């Protein structure tokens, strides 16, 4: 067994927390790029980003189901849950930074790296974790709880470690006549509470369903074993959807990775608002309406994470309340992105995703916000 294998249930729980953190971390970059697209252009790109961001939300919820299944406690308001951008993600032997930026070639290059199907080359097989070259102070996603200075070769490897951990711990528990799947079933989020959210959501209650859940996350992202489609051969993996935009051409059945031969598609690389990359509230002129709006968005996003935390901790019906909240984000983000950034000529505003820590109030109900 490798030194970085998961050996205890607590460690598995921490890994799954980090899986949720990782899945969530892709949402702000995708969402911002999506809403940075100007009206009337880039319809293909809009569609691709929309589908992918919704699937990432599904992955977040799937990871929550797995964590709940093994009796873990979910906390999306833990101060380290939301990444500080730019954050580092593993990508082969180096890692790279994912940030908040407008739709464009650079953003797509980063998105391709996020979803890249990465298998170790021969000479690295069995070599353990990769030493992290990222400077300290940058959120390192997908890292090992016991080895913060190292990262996995890829996100796929990170999930494989979780998969192996689940198998190992369940076998161990089984030997002792018990199971690790002791979680309260009523905490499982199923499609009943999750409207049209990027795929099927099934309860995780045992080894089989847990492994299926992880497979779904991996396949939607990187594709099935490097293939462009998932195992049912009907859905293109995220990596190849992004690649279609870069190559200006759709994939069709029978295509080889890297060589789409379907219909051409149009991408307007200038068709996005020029938002300032990885903007922070502190960079926004004090006293400006834009700054107030950026803070208001962060506060609302914090309330959203709090609502999700309650939903995942036994009140799944609260997810219905989260839906209109997400649509509210769209309007708030669009306004931020269309406003010029004071004292930064040629640059526009952006959501900053700096979530205020330690919000103790429960998410306010919409009733309380009405100004009659």
């Amino acid at each position: 067994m490798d030194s970085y294998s998961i050996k205890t249930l607590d460690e598995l729980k921490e890994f799954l927390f980090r899986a949720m953190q990782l899945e969530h971390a892709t949402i702000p970059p995708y969402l911002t790029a999506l809403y940075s697209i100007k009206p009337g252009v880039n319809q293909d790109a809009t569609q691709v980003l929309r589908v992918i961001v919704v699937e990432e939300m599904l992955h977040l919820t799937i990871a929550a189901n797995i964590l709940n299944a093994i009796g873990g406690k979910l906390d999306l308001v833990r101060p380290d849950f939301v990444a500080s951008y730019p954050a580092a993600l593993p990508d082969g032997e180096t890692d790279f930074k994912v940030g908040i930026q407008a739709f464009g070639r650079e953003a797509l290059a980063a998105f391709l790296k996020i979803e890249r199907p990465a298998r170790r080359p021969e000479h690295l097989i069995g070599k353990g974790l990769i030493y992290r070259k990222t400077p300290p102070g940058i959120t390192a996603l997908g890292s090992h709880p016991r080895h913060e200075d190292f990262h996995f070769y890829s996100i796929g490897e990170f999930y494989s470690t979780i998969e192996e951990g689940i198998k190992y711990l369940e076998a161990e528990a089984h030997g002792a006549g018990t199971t690790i799947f002791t979680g309260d079933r009523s905490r499982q989020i199923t499609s009943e509470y999750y409207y049209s959210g990027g795929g099927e959501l099934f309860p995780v209650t045992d080894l089989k369903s847990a492994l299926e859940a992880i497979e779904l996350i991996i396949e939607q992202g990187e594709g099935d074993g490097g293939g462009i489609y998932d195992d049912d051969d009907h859905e293109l993996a995220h990596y190849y959807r992004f690649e279609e935009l870069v190559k200006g051409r759709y994939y069709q059945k029978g295509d080889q990775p890297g060589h789409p031969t379907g219909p051409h598609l149009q991408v307007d690389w200038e068709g996005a608002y020029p938002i300032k990359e990885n903007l922070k509230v502190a960079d926004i002129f004090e006293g400006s309406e834009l700054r107030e709006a950026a803070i208001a968005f962060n506060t609302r996003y914090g309330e959203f994470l709090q609502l999700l935390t309650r939903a995942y901790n036994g009140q799944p019906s609260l997810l219905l309340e989260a839906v209109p909240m997400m649509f509210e984000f769209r309007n708030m983000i669009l306004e931020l992105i269309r406003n010029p950034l004071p004292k930064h000529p040629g640059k526009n505003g952006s959501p900053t995703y700096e979530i205020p820590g330690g919000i103790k109030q429960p998410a306010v109900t919409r009733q309380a916000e009405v100004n009659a």
Partner: protein
Amino acid sequence: MTSRFEPFLGLSAELTAFSHFDLLGTGLAESYLATLDKVVGGEITDALLAAFTALPPPESEARIQAVRTTILGHELLGDVARALIKLWYSGTWFELSSAWTERFGPRPANITFVVSPDAYVEGLLWKAIGAHPAGAKGQGFGSWAFPPKIPAFSPALDFQNLT
């Protein structure tokens, strides 16, 4: 952005009671300035912007009076200013009255039209009433189970005095 853009934004904020941020957030400010130029021409647009620039200082009683007399009550500019308010709220340019065209001459582009698909979607009226435009900007599954969110307006703005 031109030197006309700032006064246009200021004028629009004063006329609509929405903030600069809200107006820029629609993404339509530039296209509405262009709409004014197209429909009534650069000269009348400039006269309107000049009337705005010449107003007494903000938040004074004299300013509110002046908005009435030199803009809304002005023979030439009043109808144009009201059409601009309607444009911001609905995304539609409403044809100026026949009385106006008889007095100041017809303008070929002065017909009722929706400026663009986004203009309809971003109409301030939707924000003002806490609803979404029919067929666009949906509020998501189940949203009708919750009361509408009506934005709070700045208490500094006194609608009574403008009407």
